[in-house]
Structures are given as structure tokens and as C-alpha cells.
């Protein structure tokens, strides 16, 4: 007897139905919502004071030509989208800062992902000294960015440890002026950033690997897949949401790349390592163009929102799926 093909019994798959019990929408509002409001009110007031109001003020500021040397913000002239058009059309320094940040970010994230994934795969095996190495590998992430910048600034000095090691390995004539050549300065920034944040990728990917269900992997082995095929065809697709979340977290951070660059190069030589954050900082606190800087900051915010949205697009449905 052939049992009927096609859709199965609705009660057939506990926990696998894509539909949520209440249709995947908002949970029904509980009675006594006023208590909820009362309980969150202090938090909401604080967040309005420290987040919403400054944000609105900054937004207003970005439409004026205000500078702290020119009296009150509310006396400043309203210039409409002039700051924005200036930034988008004429300000090549802004454009280059954006492109530079994107390039540095792309290289850093690619390296951090590659190293983080390799380490995570390594840590799925047993070996001696694993727990010690685990703590050691996570340490960089816990150091303040400013301190990391300072440490690497010292390491990359012309007579510093990095050059001493290079001289020892490659001969006495190799003395790199890390902060005087544009490519070397960018390299130094990338090395610093990768050292600092690879642990985050490592940690997220390791927990992801640990939660990959065992049986599909075993099934693949039994079906004849070699370790490489198992990894790329079975493990990696399962990891996809985790990988994307790791990228989102790191993208949000690296777009704001500031501290390490500030400590290492202050954007130099010339503007070779000037990131967006550094440029906005200079606009605001060196040139006192606060309104213009605010406009730049809002453009970056919009860009970052769009970028993260794009990143999340492939796994959005999977992440939002409600499981019973």
C-alpha cells in the first residue's frame, strides 16, 4: 500500500511548523499594561534624556551652520540640506574617508573571520593546553581599544620590538618606518584591529560550531562525504546565521573605527589612515565645524543602517522564525 504523498498531518512535526501559535505576530497585550509602563518609566526617561534629545538636537544642528564660537545653537542660521549636499558632492576628503573605512573594514573582517574560523575549528579538537590557550586567545578582546592602540604604537616604533624581530629575521638593514609610509601605516592599523577583534569571531564561531547538531554530520559521513565536504556542505550552511550575526556585530563596530587609529597614526601620514570617525572628530574638535560634523555623522548612521540591513537580508526570515 502506498501512503499518500504530499503535505503531512498538521500535528506531524512538533517544533518544525513555520507558523507561530499566534500567527507570528505580536504577543497579545497582557492586562495591567500600566504596571509595565510604570516599571520601565525611569529607564525610558533616562533614555529620552541621554539618547533621544541629544540625537534630535544633533539632527537639528546638522541643518544649521552653527559653530561653538558663534553663540547659541538656536541663533544659528538654518541652512537646510546645505551641509549634506556639501558632504556628498564636494567633500572629497569625506568620500575618501568613507572608502578608506570600507576598504580597511573589508580586509579586517575577512582576516578576522578567516583566523577566527580556523581557531574555532582547531578548538573543536582535543589538544594539550586547550583551556589555557582559550583564555589567552580571548584576552585581546577584553582590552580597551585605546590601550590596544597604545601597545601597538609602541610595538611599531622604528626601534620597537616589531622592527627588532624583522631585523633579526631578515637582516640588519630592514628598519621599517611604520607610521611614515601610507601602505605600512594602513597595514599597522589592520594588524592591530585584527589582533584585537579576531577573538570575537573565534568565540562566536566556536559556540556556533558547538551547537551544530551531531546527527546530520554523522549522516553525511555515512553517506560518503569526506571531512572537507562535511564541513563545507553540512556544517557551514548550519553556521550561516551565526556567521552573519558575527559580521553584523563587527561591522557596526569597525565602521566606528577610531581609538586604535587615533593612538597609532592620528590618521596620518597625510590622511592615509583617516577613517570616517577620525574625520568627523577632526571636523568637530579641530575645526569646530560641529554642524557639518553632525551632518556627516548622520550620513554615516544611514549608511551603516543600510549596510547592516543588507547583511541581514539572507538570514532575516530564519532569525525571525518563531519556533514552538
Amino acid at each position, binding site marked *: *500500500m*502506498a*501512503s*499518500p*504523498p*504530499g*503535505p*503531512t*498531518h498538521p*500535528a*506531524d*512535526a*512538533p517544533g*518544525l511548523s*513555520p507558523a507561530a501559535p499566534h500567527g507570528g505576530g505580536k504577543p497579545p497585550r497582557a492586562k495591567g499594561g500600566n504596571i509595565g509602563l510604570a516599571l520601565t518609566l525611569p529607564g525610558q526617561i533616562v533614555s529620552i534624556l541621554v539618547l533621544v534629545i541629544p540625537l534630535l538636537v544633533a539632527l537639528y544642528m546638522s541643518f544649521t551652520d552653527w559653530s561653538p564660537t558663534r553663540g547659541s545653537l538656536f541663533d544659528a542660521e538654518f541652512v537646510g540640506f546645505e551641509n549634506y549636499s556639501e558632504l556628498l558632492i564636494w567633500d572629497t576628503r569625506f568620500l575618501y574617508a568613507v572608502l578608506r573605512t570600507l576598504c580597511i573594514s573589508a580586509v579586517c573582517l575577512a582576516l578576522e573571520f578567516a583566523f577566527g574560523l580556523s581557531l574555532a575549528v582547531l578548538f573543536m579538537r582535543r589538544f594539550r593546553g586547550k583551556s589555557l590557550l582559550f583564555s589567552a586567545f580571548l584576552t585581546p578582546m577584553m582590552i580597551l581599544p585605546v590601550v590596544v592602540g597604545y601597545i601597538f604604537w609602541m610595538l611599531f616604533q622604528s626601534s620597537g620590538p616589531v622592527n627588532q624581530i624583522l631585523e633579526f629575521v631578515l637582516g640588519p638593514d630592514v628598519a621599517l618606518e611604520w607610521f611614515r609610509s601610507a601602505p605600512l601605516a594602513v597595514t599597522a592599523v589592520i594588524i592591530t584591529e585584527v589582533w584585537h577583534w579576531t577573538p570575537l569571531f573565534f568565540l562566536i564561531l566556536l559556540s556556533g560550531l558547538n551547537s551544530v*547538531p551531531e*546527527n*546530520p554530520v*554523522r*549522516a*553525511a*559521513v*555515512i*553517506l*560518503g*562525504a*569526506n571531512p572537507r*565536504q562535511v564541513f563545507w*556542505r*553540512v556544517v557551514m*550552511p*548550519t553556521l*550561516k546565521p551565526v556567521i552573519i550575526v558575527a559580521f553584523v556585530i563587527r561591522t557596526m563596530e569597525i565602521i566606528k573605527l577610531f581609538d586604535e587609529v587615533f593612538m597609532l597614526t592620528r590618521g596620518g601620514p597625510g590622511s592615509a589612515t583617516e577613517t570616517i570617525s577620525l574625520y568627523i572628530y577632526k571636523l568637530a574638535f579641530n575645526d569646530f565645524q560641529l554642524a557639518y560634523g553632525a551632518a556627516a555623522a548622520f550620513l554615516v548612521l544611514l549608511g551603516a543602517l543600510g549596510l547592516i540591513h543588507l547583511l541581514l537580508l539572507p538570514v532575516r526570515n530564519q532569525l525571525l522564525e518563531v519556533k514552538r
Partner: protein
Amino acid sequence: MSIPKLELVSLVKEYNDGAVVAVDGIDLSVAPGETIALLGPSGCGKSTTLNMVVGLEEPTSGDIHIDGLSIVNIPPGKRNVGLVFQDYAVFPSMTVRQNLAFGLVVRKKGREEIARAVDEVAELLGMVGRLDVRARDLGGSEMQRVAIGRTLVTKPAVLLLDEPLSNLEAAARLAMRRELRRLQSEIGLTIIYVTHDQIEALSLADRIAVMHAGKILQVEKTSLICERPDHVYVAGFLGSPPMNLLAGEIRPGVAGAAGPAFTHGPLTLALPAGCALEKGSYTLGLRPESLRLAPESEAPLAGTVSLVEFRGGDVVVTVDVASVKLDVILPATERPAMGQSVGVDFDPESLVFFGGDTSRRLDASPMGRPL
């Protein structure tokens, strides 16, 4: 391709340097095209046995043969043994088609060959219209089909099923059980089927191997195993309700009985004259089907009815005989009332004795006649 034969030879699996013995020297021979069920409670070593056959675990000692050749040193993917997991373990982000094709894709088979094999299996399993659905969107029994189909595509010599129906809800389980029966007869595979559910084992297997604590206690034809349990454990595991088992002793002339009698706590049962059993400790088995109610004065045992369970055509009556509970199966028309005093009678030929020390069934009936 001829259907191969599978043999397990003194297979042992120990963990923690022998501190835990999961599989304790089992021998099993599965004939070509035969379906054998490994039946036992969870933790009895049946899944470990499967894992060794498929190659996920290495035996501590012993050997596994397919058509006389040892496969122990062959890696899992090359043994030509398929395993279907209890939780299906489909690849959730792949479509049904990709799942089915997986075993051939990783073996780098040609595109047309893969397409043909996938279509064939999809046809066999009734999944033709669902080939482009993502596996994570499937229902339980569909996932089950994909898991089976994915294995069949690789044309395994032996198919292992690890509790394949346990995760299904009751209606789907019944349908899938029939589906498996159909597949069995259509493709004629050699199958080892692991389950803790005796109904599944009875309905699907040609023979049943009952496992307990890492050992196979009995391998018997499905049609015979309920009738002829060889071991106390098997007798107490199979059947619904299982055989009434009373551990006790045979002593000569107790409580005024002329010949030898069997005693179990307060219960004494005079054995029929001419009983050939020596005195000693035994376990007495009384099949619920062979017991019947009789007037108290005429029956060897007497007690009160403490429970009556309806099961459609018949009832299971529990009779308390001197604090011992005996299950009796009766036609529904003959059911007694609760609390009624009844006698319990049986045919002496239906008594089954197990050795008190060996737990094995004695070869002869109490009357000395060979069974």
C-alpha cells in the same frame, strides 16, 4: 546485485577502559533480504551495535562481516551500509532534491546519473512533488522519507533503521510503518531495525533479537517469539500483558500436597502427578492467554478480581491470588465483576518453567514431554 548477508561475530564495545560494557559479545547473522529487529529497552546497547555496523564507533573486539568479508577497517562512507536516524538528521538548509542527491554528489557521480537516481527514489517514496521544498519546512514523516530516500539513493548493501518511527505522532507512525513494509517487499533490502517498541518489531521484522544489558538473549522468528520465550527477561518483555512470572521453588510435599509443589511466597501450587522437575529454584511462567477462570472449588488457584481492562474484543483481568497479581486474558463476554471471588485454572501443559539460576527456559514441559 545480489542481496548481501550480514554477520556480527562476538561483537564487544566497552567504554572507559572496560568500566562500561555497552555491547557484551553479541553474535547475530542476518540472512540476505531479511529484516531483523533489535528489540530492547533504552540503554541496552542496540544503538551502539548499529553505530558499530555503520562505522561511527569502533568495536573493542569482535568482527562484522558483509558476505563473509570483514568491514571493521573500512571507513563509514565506504562500507555500503546506510543508517536512518531517529531524528532523521536531514540537512535542513538543503532542498529535498539536494538531500536525496547528497550521497551521489559527494561521490562525484555524473549529473544525469544523480538526476535519474533521485527521480527514482522520489517516485518510490511519493516525494516527486516536494523535491524543491527546503527540508526544514517538511513535516515529520516527510523528513523521515527524505532520510530513508537519501540512504536508498546510495544503494546500501544493508540498511539500518534506528528507532525510525519514535519521533512520529501516532497516525503518521502507523502510515509510515506500512510504508516501510511496502519498501521492504519492493526493494528486498537486508535491514536491521532497532526499536524499543514490540509492536513495531512484531509488525516489521522477520526475526526479533531481544537485547538486554548488552547481550542478545534470544533470536527467534517473529511468529514464534511470543509463544516460545527462551529467557525470563524475554518472557517479561514481550506480550501485552507479558507472561505472569513467579520466582519460587519446587519442594516435595508441601502443605499436604501429595506430590511436589511450586511455592512463590504465600502461593502454593500443587504440580500434577508425574512432574519430572527436580526440587530447586525456578521461575514459573503463566501465559495470560492460557489462564481461564473457573469455579473456586474446582480451580488450583483462587483469588479476587482487582482490575478489569477492556481492549476491544477481549479484557485483561487482574486476579489477586494471595497477594500475587495474575493477568488473565478473557473474551469480553466472559468478564467477571470487580471484587468477585474467582478460581484460576490452566492446562498443566501450558506451564513454562525457567531455571532459577540460568533464567533460561527448561527444554521440557513439567510433564517430562519435550516441547
